[in-house]
């Protein structure tokens, strides 16, 4: 099993346990959703973040909670949970209930938490990039000191909007981090067949911005430490950064993926690099936490997810009238 390469840093025990908890929440939440989809209890498309927990949590944990902002993508469960969304509301949303985060009108691909800086997931690949630089433009014009992280996958870098928005962010020195979570596939197509360079972060030089690569995106502390550094750079007014982390999605692209494009061996190889068990070992080996403490966190995460399912199941369906509401603001 690959071990975490990071040295013990000044991060507090409390913060580390909190990050571990958030990774567990992502794993448990998505595992549960996957089971509910298979049982036919969840309709529509859902995209899972299982396997990509560290790449999400490590990045978000370097932000100021409730202050900084993110834009998220279709595979956004991990980002929403990393930003500590209410799991009950999120599960209810995915089940299409009136009590959901978006009153049952958005679903898995449109989870948002505006009050807490999550400007929302997006069903259009690359669709959040414009939103992200615009949000960053507001922060710059109002001099708020807030920064924005724009999450997207490896495939989104081949959308034209990537080129336009990163260039604009660069010339205006906007406080935004372009963050590509590279899980190596755009549905079925390997990214290496779709670009003629090794990695997308290498494109940074074309826009006059720094490019960073987190080669082991399953190493929570590696992601976190790199983001700490990048967040500071961006907050200091130096303009945008492009960063890419390498990770892997354990499940299919969405719930309807037969997975013919990759081998079982490849999937198994990546499962050995499980970000959660690696961080668990890291906590134990460095005597940051005891088995008992971690066990309690694990139990409490499972419990919170079960609770969210109970909440969602007992929540009402939205009224038909509600379909005609919320189109325009007053």
């Amino acid at each position, binding site marked *: 099993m690959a071990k975490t390469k990071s040295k013990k840093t000044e991060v507090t025990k409390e913060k580390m346990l909190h990050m571990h908890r958030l990774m567990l929440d992502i794993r448990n939440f998505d595992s549960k959703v996957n089971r509910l989809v298979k049982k036919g209890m969840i309709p529509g498309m859902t995209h899972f973040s299982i396997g990509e927990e560290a790449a999400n949590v490590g990045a978000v944990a370097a932000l100021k909670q409730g202050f900084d902002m993110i834009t998220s993508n279709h595979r956004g469960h991990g980002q929403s949970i990393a930003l500590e969304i209410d799991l009950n509301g999120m599960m209810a949303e995915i089940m299409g209930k009136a009590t959901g985060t978006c009153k049952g009108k958005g679903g898995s691909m449109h989870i948002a938490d505006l009050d807490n800086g999550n400007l929302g997931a997006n069903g259009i690949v690359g669709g959040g990039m414009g939103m992200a630089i615009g949000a960053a433009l507001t922060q710059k*014009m109002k001099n708020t000191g807030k920064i924005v992280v724009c999450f997207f996958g490896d495939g989104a870098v081949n959308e034209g909007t990537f080129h336009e*928005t990163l*260039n604009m962010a660069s010339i205006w020195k906007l406080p935004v981090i372009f963050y590509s979570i590279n899980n190596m596939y755009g549905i079925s197509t390997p990214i290496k067949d779709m670009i003629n360079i090794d990695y997308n972060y290498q494109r940074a030089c074309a826009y006059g911005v720094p490019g960073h690569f987190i080669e082991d995106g399953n190493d929570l502390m590696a992601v976190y430490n790199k983001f700490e550094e990048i967040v500071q750079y961006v907050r200091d007014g130096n303009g945008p950064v492009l960063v890419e982390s390498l990770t892997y999605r354990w499940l299919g692209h969405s719930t309807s993926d037969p997975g013919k494009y990759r081998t079982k061996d490849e999937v198994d190889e990546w499962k050995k690099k499980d970000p959660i068990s690696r961080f668990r070992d890291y906590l134990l080996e460095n005597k940051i936490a005891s088995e008992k403490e971690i066990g309690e966190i694990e139990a409490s995460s499972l419990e919170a997810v079960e609770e969210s399912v109970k909440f969602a199941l007992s929540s009402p369906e939205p009224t038909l009238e509600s379909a005609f509401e919320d*189109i325009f603001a007053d």
Partner: protein
Amino acid sequence: MEKETKIMSVRDAIIMAMSEEMRRDENVFLMGEDVGVFGGDFGTSVGMLDEFGKERVRDTPISENAISGAAIGAAMTGMRPIVDVTFMDFVVYMMDNIVNQAAKTRYMYGGKGQIPVVFRCAAGGGVGSAAQHSQSLEAWFTHIPGLKVVAPGTPADVKGILKAAIRDNNPVIFLEYKAQFNMKGEVPLDPEFVLPLGKADIKKEGKDVSVITYGRMLERVMQAAKEVEEAEGVNVEVVDLITLSPLDKDTVLESVKKTGKVLLVNDAHKTGGFIGEVAAMIAESDAFDYLDGRILRLAGEDVPIPYNQTLEAAMIPSVERIKKYILKLVNNR
């Protein structure tokens, strides 16, 4: 309220509306290609850089996708951007941001967040700029729930409705017409002169026939109405929609019930054009029973706009053809 007016062009009315709103609200700003030192591709921001500076009169790269996306993101987080799209044809590069993002975000988020942004689109032909620089694409946007679409046809309406669009908390597609930037008319100087969105205006009362139009065609319809009245004694009612979405159905239907005859005029292509929707709305309503003739449409031809000026002019409804159609209706031919 200041009652004073001044004769000014559409161009100056646009500058006045934006400048007044930018003075009133520091969150309002203008962005787009060449809006700064150049003063806008159509001169619609001349002098604004000097007053407001380059942060708020913000030149952009030639990146329509990024411009529209950034505007929407800025609007979501507290600003009130005005985008100078320049030629409406370029809005094609902005479609994801307008249609999939701006129009739907609030709904998808269950009523959270708002996107107060105005996309100012220089629409229509008449200046010899051929097929990629002459389109009126309003029907694409009236088809999308979550967008408001306005197309004023006089300098005063341009000022009043642009100000309303800027103050509205939703994405608004604003059509201004390349052929009419120099058109002059009386414009109220009052900075609180704001017209209501979603309200049509009877530009001329009449009893024989209702001509329903908007935007660039209003000027020609008014001219045609005047001429048929003088020459033939036909009393035309001119309904200026001003706002296409949300449509002021009541005013339209009231006029139809009064005259019993309907001609709809727009400069956009006939097939799938917005007046077809208005025609269908009338046909479905109880006003249908008041009709004593067919509902007629007069629109741009279904061809890409040709470069040659004689050909171009022939593709768009002229005063002569509007008159002919009015008489066709009145004489039940």
